[in-house]
């Protein structure tokens, strides 16, 4: 029985040790060389954003402009046998996941901002969006100025630039931040706020499926979308930039833009494809 006790003791110490000193080995490796080795790029994409990245309930696949661009970029970089793996992210989770190495790159309606540039590296612009507002049809809110009243509640998504922008342009409005766009829109529908704010492309996607709602006020910011890679992954970034440039040149880019946004009423394709 002494042996059993000893065994218990060692096991206990082992578990304790495991709990306490969770090995601290953070290494900086080249994402690109890993990707090249397993012939796969792991992309962080949205799954709740119509037109950009939306889960198809029928197939369980995510579909949208971001997905198609990611697939095309993967093929350009790794060749026709290259695989694109998709991991679902939200605005809140994407940067931690990239920094933590769960994903290689983010293509998830992500605006290039100076703040974010301090912690991740962005590719060239692949989609030029602008922030806008979604309201119930017949709402008294016509543009961003109408939001600047006490008692107005604006819905946004955690970790997005939209909330920060509203704080600047309508400081009197109260802002509620939800987990993702699906949640934010359900909250709008439930009357948790009078307007949902984010980039026009996303809002047009929601409005197209929900006839009682409309995008108002035009765009009041510039939200250039970029593909983000972890800091220092210059090789991967350069490859992505090269792929994007080739896509614009050979027409793949325009084809994809047309495919997803060609039929969206009120959407300006030219504006979106600005570099």
């Amino acid at each position, binding site marked *: *029985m002494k042996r*059993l*006790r000893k065994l*218990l*003791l060692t*096991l*206990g*110490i082992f*578990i*304790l040790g495991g*709990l306490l000193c*969770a*090995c*601290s*080995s*953070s*290494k900086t490796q080249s994402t690109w060389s890993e990707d090249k080795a397993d012939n796969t790029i792991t992309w962080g994409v949205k*799954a*709740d954003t*119509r037109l950009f990245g*939306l*889960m198809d*309930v*029928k197939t*369980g696949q995510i579909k949208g402009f971001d997905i198609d661009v990611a697939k095309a970029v993967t093929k350009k970089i790794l060749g026709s046998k290259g695989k694109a793996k998709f991991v*679902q*992210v*939200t605005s809140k*989770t994407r940067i*931690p*996941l990239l*920094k*933590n*190495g*769960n994903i290689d790159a983010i293509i998830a309606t992500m605006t290039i901002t100076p703040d974010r540039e301090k912690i991740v590296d962005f590719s060239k612009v692949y989609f030029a969006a602008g922030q806008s507002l979604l309201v119930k049809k017949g709402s008294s809110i016509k543009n961003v100025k109408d939001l600047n009243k006490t008692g107005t509640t604006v819905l946004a998504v955690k970790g997005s630039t939209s909330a920060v922008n509203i704080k600047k342009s309508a400081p009197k409005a109260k802002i509620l931040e939800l*987990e*993702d*766009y*699906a*949640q934010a*829109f*359900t909250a709008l*529908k439930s009357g948790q706020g009078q307007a949902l704010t984010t980039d026009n492309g996303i809002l047009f996607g929601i409005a197209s*499926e*929900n006839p009682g709602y409309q995008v108002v006020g035009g765009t009041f910011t510039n939200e250039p979308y970029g593909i983000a890679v972890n800091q220092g992954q210059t090789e991967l970034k350069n490859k992505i930039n090269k792929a994007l440039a080739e896509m614009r040149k050979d027409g793949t880019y325009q084809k994809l833009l047309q495919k997803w946004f060609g039929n969206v009423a009120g959407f300006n394709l030219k504006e979106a494809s600005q570099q």
Partner: protein
Amino acid sequence: MNSFAEAYTWINFRFLLEGLWVTIEVSVVSIILSSIVGLFLGIVRYIRYPVVSGVVGVIIDLIRNLPLLLLIFFTYFGLPKIGIRMEPLTAAIAAMTVFESAMIAEIVRSGILAVDTGQMEGARANGLTYWQGLWYIVLPQALRKMIPPLVSQFISLIKDTSLATIIVLPELMYRAQIIYGQNTRYMIPMFVALAVLYFVVCYALSLVASRLEKRVG
């Protein structure tokens, strides 16, 4: 009522069932792992082994008193900072196992404490060693007392898997949100489906448990 008929298509239903499967997968794995770890830690805590039992006790108390949601967050978003990186499924199982082990250890400890000390003394008097007494006499009786709290702990665990939506684990709750997020008319049908599916699983478990309890008792 129309929205119910539209929402309950086979496609949507299958999508939900796949989520239910993930829920069950995470639950079963976490229940098994945390039962083993919890039993072990509970005993370690009970035997009052110098230093070790004390340290284990403090760790158990710390974990038990934190929200599970925080542990899930921390496992998925915090731990990679120190080099431990997991997929959502693994992270959910890891976080739940750590949390539930601490909860179960406490149940085990109080279960053993609830067994009359005379039992152990009797066992020792009959020539059994401390460990034999613990294993053959005390633990079986303690187990009987532990069944009800253990079962409600397991039911909590199943319900708590819904918290893993926050790390985009494609379980039942997440999938329902995906469906009603795409068409908000499906909101009520989806909440009804969620309530029914979770209820069926949890209630079935509690029925099985009360049967088991009767048999053992």
